[in-house]
């Protein structure tokens, strides 16, 4: 009866597109990782683990790209969560008026194209004429001026900063939604019992915000591991390879026609994220009767 009212073929459209264009390439990629597939020859030969040996060899830069990806991911997770949490608490009940306007403004960068944000910050972070260094010079803090995107030691940090500027509003909004699920009575009761504001935050807000914080961390994790646009525009992976991540390297392999190594690198990320996603999604979708 249920199958008749809720026919399974309703899922076909979504399922087929998803299978064909997301899942299939992922698994095909694993198979092609063991070949010398490239754009110069029509023949594809089995080469065993060669591509993976290349990726994990210390003579190549791929391990660095993976390291950079993880560095970017961990730092954006920390920064966005901390600032997002601060803003969420501030704009949930810390401010009485204009709350909605503040939220609308702080969320704004989220809807802007990353590519555009990158272009604008490229000019702001220009060492000679950019607004940031100009600002430091005009207030006499010349010592703070940096070659933001050119200095190998801070280029990645600058990228992380820009990415946080763009993404923190999203995190704030999710955490606000999380804060609103916490019953007000808890705070009232705690206040009567004489809990300090920090005590209330530590013992009520934080523990009850764990589900929202989990969601936020997962979103930032999935975003960070496949970051591409912001790095491509801001630094193009440079200076040298200092800000290259997995997906800028993948694009590079793609442009050079080195499909075998590229698809192996993609597959490493695919397997890691899918397995990781498997446990996360299973946790987030409670088994119902």
């Amino acid at each position, binding site marked *: 009866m249920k199958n008749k009212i809720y026919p399974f073929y309703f899922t076909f459209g*979504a399922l087929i597109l*998803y299978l064909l264009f997301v899942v299939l390439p*992922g698994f095909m990629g694993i198979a092609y990782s063991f070949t010398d597939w490239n754009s110069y020859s029509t023949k594809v030969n089995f080469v065993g683990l060669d591509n993976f040996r290349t990726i994990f060899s210390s003579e190549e830069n791929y391990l660095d790209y993976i390291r950079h990806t993880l560095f970017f991911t961990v730092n954006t997770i920390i920064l966005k969560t901390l600032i997002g949490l601060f803003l969420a608490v501030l704009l949930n009940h810390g401010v009485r008026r204009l709350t909605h306007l503040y939220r609308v403004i702080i969320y704004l960068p989220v809807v802007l194209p990353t590519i555009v944000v990158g272009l604008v910050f490229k000019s702001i972070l220009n060492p000679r004429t950019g607004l940031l260094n100009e600002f430091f010079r005009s207030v006499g803090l010349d010592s703070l001026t940096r070659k933001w995107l050119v200095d190998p030691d801070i280029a990645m940090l600058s990228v992380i900063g820009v990415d946080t500027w763009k993404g923190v509003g999203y995190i704030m909004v999710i955490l606000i939604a999380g804060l609103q699920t916490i019953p007000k009575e808890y705070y009232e009761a705690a206040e009567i019992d004489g809990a300090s504001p920090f005590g209330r935050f530590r013992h009520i807000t934080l523990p009850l915000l764990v589900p929202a914080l989990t969601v936020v961390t997962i979103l930032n994790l999935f975003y960070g591991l496949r970051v591409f646009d912001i790095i491509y525009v801001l630094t193009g992976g440079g200076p040298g390879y200092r800000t290259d991540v997995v997906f800028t390297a993948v694009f590079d392999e793609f442009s050079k026609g080195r499909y075998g190594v590229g698809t192996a690198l993609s597959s490493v990320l695919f397997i890691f994220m899918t397995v990781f996603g498997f446990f996360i999604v299973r946790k987030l979708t409670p088994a119902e009767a």
Partner: protein
Amino acid sequence: MMLTKNLPQVRNNMLAMFFCFLVIVPVYLVIVNSLKDSAQARTMSPALPEKLHTKNFSTVIERGKLTQSFVNSMLYATSATIISTILAAMAAYVLSRNKTRFNRFVYFFIVLGIAMPLNFFTLTKVMQMTHLINTQLGIIILYTATQIPLSVFLIYGFVDAIPRELDEAAIVDGCGPFRLFFSVIFPLLTPAVVTAGVLNFVGIWNDFLLPLYYLNDSTKWPMTLAVYNFFGQFRQDWNLVSADILLTVAPVLVIYLLGQRFILSGLTSGAVKG
């Protein structure tokens, strides 16, 4: 007394304004510089324009071939959003209403797609096999497919909130599965569907990656790729680049301002309650 009571409010407002200021500065820079001449905009300074050069916009539309890429972006974002949201809603509805073991597995499997990164190499192969490479239809189908997991996830939770009695009443009245879904359920899913739709639209409008890989032909480029290419050609003329940027973000800004209540509230109710 009054003052000490309001002190935290003043401090908190200052903090909120400071963060808003950080957001607004870059936006302000783009707006003022889009109205300057090339010489004055060279350093992208915050100074106000000496004279308003509104001509920049028409120059950009002409030289950046913006009309073409605007039409492309509109086509991709609108059609992929509509198709993927409807397909996702249909799937989410059936999977949520009929929770058999198998259907729960299918749901799980689709949602897992949120985590899966695309493999651009083998996807190229699939696109070639289906003759979709470098075509507008191809990019629309790709966007539709990639948006499905998140949309199913967002809508699935909402289906439960619609009372089953409605289904039963509609069936007693002789509705088939299609009429039941499209004329009874779908309208009630509006908040979830709009949320998913807005997220999809903005996500597709702002995407840079798929066209970078799969559209070689510049007449098929969306605005993001066009603006990036424009920057490559006119990197000395920040006034033009700024004007181009403003025109590129205008549509998403309009959608954002119209839909901000949905976005800022509905966005996560599906995600957080789980």
